[in-house]
């Protein structure tokens, strides 16, 4: 990494990244993606070669229908946790089981996002969010989902689902969200 200094100002780099992102979106064919039927689909559109750009070049919003399919099959894309815990409870296992089943039928890739509530320090919550996302990833892997289809990211307490400093908000924010990011 010694020689990897890049002489780009931060703002410039961000602008470039944004430009790259939008141009990739532009080349996406209009009909590249359709929602798979709720019941077992013979073939998901994303399986067709050449119709979908690489997973890392698009955002999850481009695959909203895929997200809807996962939610419909599993009951939710989100699981919740007890305070300062990354243990999966029975409800979480059921939801993740449904997600694993859907992932078995649809060759989508997912990003597993870990989150924490505000009652932890910034650094610790980043690590805790990663533990939670990792617990979900391990469960999905044990259900047969190939680890190469799953990436993990932690947002710590930086992206709450709900505003507020109360038990209900905290409970809603201690979560892992499985986001469909593309096909392969």
């Amino acid at each position, binding site marked *: 990494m010694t020689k990897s200094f890049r002489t780009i100002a931060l703002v410039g780099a*961000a602008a470039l990244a944004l430009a790259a992102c939008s141009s990739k979106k532009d080349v996406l064919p209009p009909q590249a993606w359709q929602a798979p039927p709720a019941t077992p689909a013979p073939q998901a559109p994303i399986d067709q070669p050449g119709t979908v750009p690489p997973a890392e070049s698009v955002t999850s919003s481009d695959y909203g229908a895929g997200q809807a399919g996962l939610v419909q099959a599993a009951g939710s894309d989100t699981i919740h946790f007890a305070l300062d815990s990354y243990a999966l409870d029975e409800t979480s296992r059921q939801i993740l089981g449904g997600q694993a089943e859907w992932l078995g039928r649809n060759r989508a890739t997912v990003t597993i996002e870990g989150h924490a509530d*505000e009652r932890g320090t910034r650094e610790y919550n980043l690590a805790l969010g990663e533990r939670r996302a990792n617990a979900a990833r391990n469960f999905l892997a044990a259900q047969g989902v190939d680890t190469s289809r799953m990436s993990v990211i932690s*947002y710590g307490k930086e992206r709450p689902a709900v505003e507020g400093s109360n038990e209900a908000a905290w409970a809603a924010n201690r979560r892992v969200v499985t986001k469909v990011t593309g096909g392969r």
Partner: protein
Amino acid sequence: MKPVALFALLPLALAAPASAQLRVDITGGTAQPMPIAIPAFPTATPAPTPAGTTDAVGREVADIITNNLGGTGLFKPLPAGSYAAPGVAQVTAPDFTSFRTAAAQALVTGTVTANPDGTLAIGCFLYDVFTEEALVRRVFTVTPAGWRRAAHKCSDLVYTRLTGESGYFDSRIVYVAETGPRTKRVKRLAVMDQDGANPRYLTSGQSLVLMPRFSPVSETLTYMSFANNRPRVMLYNMNTGEQRVVGNFDTMSFAGRFSPDGRTVLFSVTRAGNSDIYAYDIASGQSRRLTSGSSIDTSPSYSPDGSKIVFESDRGGTQQLYVMNADGSGAQRISFGSGRAASPVWSPRGDLIAFTRMDGGKFRIAVIRPDGSGERRLTDSWQDEGPSWSPNGRVILFSRTDRNGVSKLRSIDLTGRNDRAIPTPTEASDPAWGPLLP
């Protein structure tokens, strides 16, 4: 905003011998602030400069010094009407009777002159009002763009002469500027002078950024960026715009902090639920792992001599503070008592460690000795976290989030007095104090 290009110090005369009795007690718990007069700095002939007319600059210089010294809680600047404002002739020969009548113990004054070459000469004089002794006599020559730094340099001289400790006014703060709803918060890196002047943004807000820190020796920052959805510790050179990723890891890295010599960045790397501390050598680009095991080990901070590292770990079940040798050996827990302890940072003086004490549902800023003794809680609010020391180890910056989720920057004296707001244009978090400027 460029750094000040020209900043020459032209000493007129050395400060008076250190026999003066005038001294502010900064260690006591009940110190009375010293009454001090800081009249507008006069100018012989008002002249236009890019920074404003010289008499306007003279008023603002006095305001900046007043704000700096008054903000410490150690000085009580007297209202301008309580004494006769000096003219240019009185700067070198003050009418002490007027200041004695106003009960001032010290007088800060000076002149503002526009030089033919476009620079400004800003004098800085400190007098003991009772002995009539000149304790500081200095002239700063600055570019018009850098005139505020002369006021900060003057504040540092006065502070040092009257407290016996180095100052912290000619320094900057890096922080995270926050806008938008909390569920979709936009966070940008921002830098400003320690008094909130000259704010500027370093990132666009496109990517989430967290936990910036200043190098103690160069114009370099470390921070965490979520660019391309790859959360990693970065190095950024503010002079050249160069930046690079710290370490060569494919998973999340965070909590970067410089060593006192600026050559190493300590940080955490997370993999499969396990966070360990690494040391990254900036020159070679090599990373060395310092902790292991399945615990969350993070927030590493070197002692000023570089021989020890304080960090937080949940290896004992909950987040607590540990001190280890710089090579990772000999970790000893130092925080006990109720609740959890997090985000430690070693004082530049070495005698204390500031950290976040989590107890009873609240986060407070606290200090503890490196051997684990003498814990004191300095603040009491809803969520105070992420302490950072002033360059002289007297004042601690931190973020305060209130019950409505509003996040602001604050500072507090290590005695626990003088809990005050640091002004920022937007909501703000993760402040880190930079070194005293040259």
